[in-house]
């Protein structure tokens, strides 16, 4: 996984140290556990409610 992380970040122009690659790999595993708490069957058609006000900044 650490190598995959290195590739993704490198493509974005971000240099990441080996130490950080290892920590990030652990963090992504922890994130995967959190993802498992998400019940997608409850969410799939649920409006995310992110709105941008028509007319912009209302100034």
């Amino acid at each position, binding site marked *: 996984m650490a190598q995959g992380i290195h590739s993704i*970040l490198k493509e974005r122009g*971000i240099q990441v140290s080996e130490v950080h690659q290892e920590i990030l790999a652990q963090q992504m595993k922890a994130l995967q556990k959190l993802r498992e708490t998400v019940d997608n069957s409850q*969410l799939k058609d*649920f409006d995310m409610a992110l709105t941008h006000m028509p007319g912009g900044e209302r100034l």
Partner: protein
Amino acid sequence: MTQELAALSIGELAPKLRDKQISPVELTESVLANVDTYDHDINAFIRIDKEKAIKSAKEAEQEIQSGNYRGFLHGIPMALKDILYFKDEPATMGSKIHEGFIADFDATVVSKLKLSGVTFHGKLNMHEYAWGATTTNPHYGACRNPWDLNRIPGGSSGGSAAAVAADMSIASLGTDTGGSIRIPASSCGIIGLKPTHGRISKYGCFPLSWSLDHIGPMTKTVFDAALLLEVLGGYDPKDPTSVDRPTQNYSGQLNEDVKGLVIGIEEGYFFKNVDNRVDEAVQKALKQLEKLGARIEVVQIPSLAQAEFAELVTITTEASAIHHDNLVKQPEKFGDDVRLLLEMGELMSGVDYVQAQQIRRKLNLEFAATFEKVDVLISPTLPFLPPALGESTVDINGQTLSFLDEVIRFTGPGNLTGLPSLSIPCGVRDGMPIGLQIMGPAFQEEKVLNVAFAIEKLELMNGQKPDLYRHR
């Protein structure tokens, strides 16, 4: 007398200033004397502006002497977190990258405080870019907790909390994206209020995560928090997330009566894995409120199980979008912990982010349904006592857990939902203060403040302050 002035609250000082029993200059000198005495150890300040503060205090003195008293904040010395813009002054955001940045306008909150006659005496230390909860700043030095200099003051507004707790600022402001007002308020034994998202304008505050960021008061008393909310609240067309809802006379309506109040307790989330000392202090406060006529009702908010995912994904993604260019071009200028978090945010997927926003809406609906049954929710602010500087883990009843995972567990839902949340000290255990969190319905800060006022009247702190203060 002069030495004691800095220990007083806005509510105690304002009538004395108005009635010319004390002068703003005398008060500012008292606060600056404490900065001279204590900040060498605490390191709450990034910059101290003594000359400017005295000049401003003299102007306030002249105005008051000539009968132009502006109100409760006139002549009150305050230092603010170094993330809020003051026109033509540096704002570092606690970073190396913004070390030479000069703001060309005032933040809306700064404009409002200037109009109210506040005397500013410095900029306060913080976690770099507000992206962390320790205030162990690699560029400006670690800020230390006035209750125990070996422990962190919490963060990211650690300088604000430490300065207020050590009487180096009469009150202050913090910013809160995952708990950064309430965490240091709890750690340093003061009041921290994160109002409803949209209640206080964020214009002129450097962002960490637009949809989660809030600005709020950090004070010695509930009255002072109410007063500052009164001054700072209100619609601002310059902030696209500002909401046009009427504010109230929050300080004037404070009422300690909790008879008939229904307090919701979400045991499965907010009381799970809590240090026994913290749990005991919060339970004691709840029992006292029950004795005064409040009723406790156990509630369930199922989507809280997904709150950690939603908070982590939202904050890391938005923060990494803000700092992307600097992460590519000058990554070595970030502190190691912040750089790692920014790298992490680059790894989140678009699907993760959208699902996090779906969870936020679900949480908001569940909280709204809960507040149809209860008036407020009460929980600990933090599940542990503030750890020693440099610790990346915390001990909760013998379990060693990650500080980063645990620190925003109880405060994060307030940011995800935008609901008003306040931390108030509810006791001291093993020499450290413990914070109790009160959450309320959207735009009903008055409910949260009234419950806090009732808890303040219980005097659960028994007048205890940091030893630093008592031994001076």
